[in-house]
């Protein structure tokens, strides 16, 4: 029916079914462990940046601190605020938690993609991928899932029946819906070059370092994607959802016990997933670092497993980067956030996409690529000037007539 996995083509048999079940279990457990370690890693790294020690009592280097906190949260009292909408209040944490795990399913977690290999591996005589699912819509699945995740935060804030969570969730939903546009447009640049939606196809298209989409799309879509992804995750400097100084704790103020833990888990799981997605889209996922025909190969390890090592290494870089953002960047003001999203990121992503599309058309039809690029840039500059003129006019109107709302 659906070619989610080469395993599931043809009749459904016991061995493929078992392999899929084991893969589901492994991805789930790895997801939970990754989240646990990410929480510890973030606390430890931030502590280091702020000249503190951080968690150091539970387990070696305090690595079990998250587990201890989780167990503690399990045994706390589960509160329902009296003005809460009980059904939605109970539903919201799951709407946040489940999408966080689902998105991880489409990330290629390993496999040999070198030199245009398909990344398929053979397990117990069955051809499969080191990836839970490879749906035909590929990365669009991640976008769809992240748009579902908005509901978790939005409904959590609303159903609490309290004003600070409501404010937090209204902010969050506006922010996430706005930045989704920039996210999608910068993603479109990658899809334009890869020519496919499937994540394994995108990885297979990035065999050398110059093929990595961060280089081949020009660095701009990557930067836009990184900023929009940070905003989508509600991580600092875009964490207006839980601005402690203004909103107590944000959308999850009224939550306690395991329901709160689910939100917390979802937030960190989303960070891991988004880093993995960035690596998959722009940095070749499980591909090794290769310049021309030289491949940085890890000896003694089979190529398929080596992919997993490379992926982990690349993801760690981005996880560290997110922590670094949190420790160094101050939070944006709300109007700055909206200005950045609508007036800078979306037009820039759209313009860059048009530029890449024009270049691609020129290459296909054998036109002079320099002339086409120059022409496109001229058009973009005119568009930019028009946009600036419009901004200036509206700013003038605002100062003479006041705001119109």
């Amino acid at each position: 029916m659906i070619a989610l996995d080469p395993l599931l083509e043809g009749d459904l048999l016991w061995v493929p079914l078992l392999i899929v079940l084991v893969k589901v279990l492994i991805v789930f457990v790895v997801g939970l462990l990754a989240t646990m370690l990410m929480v510890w890693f973030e606390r430890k790294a931030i502590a280091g940046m702020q000249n503190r020690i951080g968690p150091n009592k539970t387990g070696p280097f305090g690595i079990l601190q998250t587990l201890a906190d989780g167990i503690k949260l399990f045994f706390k009292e589960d509160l329902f605020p009296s003005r809460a909408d009980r059904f939605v209040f109970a539903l919201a944490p799951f709407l946040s938690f489940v999408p966080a795990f689902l998105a991880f399913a489409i990330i290629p977690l390993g496999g040999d993609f070198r030199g245009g290999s398909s990344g398929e591996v053979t397990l117990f005589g069955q051809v499969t991928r080191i990836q839970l699912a490879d749906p035909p819509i590929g990365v669009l699945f991640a976008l769809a899932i992240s748009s579902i995740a908005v509901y978790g935060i939005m409904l959590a804030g609303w159903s609490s029946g309290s004003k600070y969570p409501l404010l937090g969730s209204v902010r969050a939903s506006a922010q996430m819906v706005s930045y989704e546009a920039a996210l999608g447009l910068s993603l479109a640049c990658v899809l334009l070059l890869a020519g496919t939606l499937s994540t394994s196809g995108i990885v297979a298209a990035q065999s050398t370092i110059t093929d990595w989409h961060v280089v081949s799309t020009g660095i701009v879509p990557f930067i836009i994607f990184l900023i929009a992804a940070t905003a989508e995750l509600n991580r600092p400097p875009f964490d207006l959802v839980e601005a402690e100084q203004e909103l107590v704790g944000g959308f999850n103020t009224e939550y306690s016990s395991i329901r709160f833990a689910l939100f917390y888990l979802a937030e960190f799981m989303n960070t891991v997933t988004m880093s993995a997605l960035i690596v998959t889209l722009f940095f070749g996922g499980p591909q090794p670092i290769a310049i021309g025909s030289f491949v940085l190969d890890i000896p003694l390890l089979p190529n398929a497993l080596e992919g997993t090592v490379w992926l982990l290494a690349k993801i760690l870089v981005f996880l560290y980067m997110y922590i670094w953002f949190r420790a160094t960047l101050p939070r944006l003001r709300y109007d700055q956030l909206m200005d950045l999203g609508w007036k800078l990121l979306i037009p820039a992503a759209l313009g860059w996409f048009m530029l890449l599309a024009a270049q691609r058309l020129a290459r296909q039809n054998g036109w002079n690529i320099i002339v086409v690029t120059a022409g496109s840039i001229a058009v973009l500059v005119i568009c930019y000037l028009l946009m600036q003129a419009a901004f200036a006019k509206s700013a003038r109107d605002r100062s003479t007539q006041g705001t119109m709302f």
Partner: protein
Amino acid sequence: MQFFVFVCAALMILLGAVGVIVRKHPVHAALSLVLTLFGVAVSFVSQEAHFLAAVQVIVYAGAIVVLFLFVIMLLGVDRVENLRTEPLTAQRPLAIITCLGLVGVLVAAIVNGNGVLNERGEGINLPDLQNGPDANTVQLAESIFSRYVVAFEVTSVLLVIAVVGTVLLTRKRQVKTSVK
């Protein structure tokens, strides 16, 4: 398998649709709408229209209903409405008549188009992409951006007109009150 998926999707759609009407609370009604939209997405997937399913979830469930909820929360209409008072007296009889009329039209359309509904469409007919994962998306893009490009562009112009019109209408009212 296909039948099972169809029954599940149909149940989701119908339950959601009934929920939109029956639930008194606007937020619950909006959530029921999400259920319906998901059911439609599931039936798209079972028809192998993966791209449409993704767009259905991203655009309808992910953006439009979020905006509905946003407006409901922002305007503070998230209270249970009193259904006893009626602003327009003829509303209920008219609604019943319109409803019956709509059912009649739908039944007539289905009976009339019986032959067409039972025929199979062309489906995916790109020979070189027959088994590729992107055949669906490619074909959709080709028909939107080549064959039906005018209709597509006209629709987008229509949307822009709607936005501009809304801005204009809200601004006019504001100018009047500020003059007073």
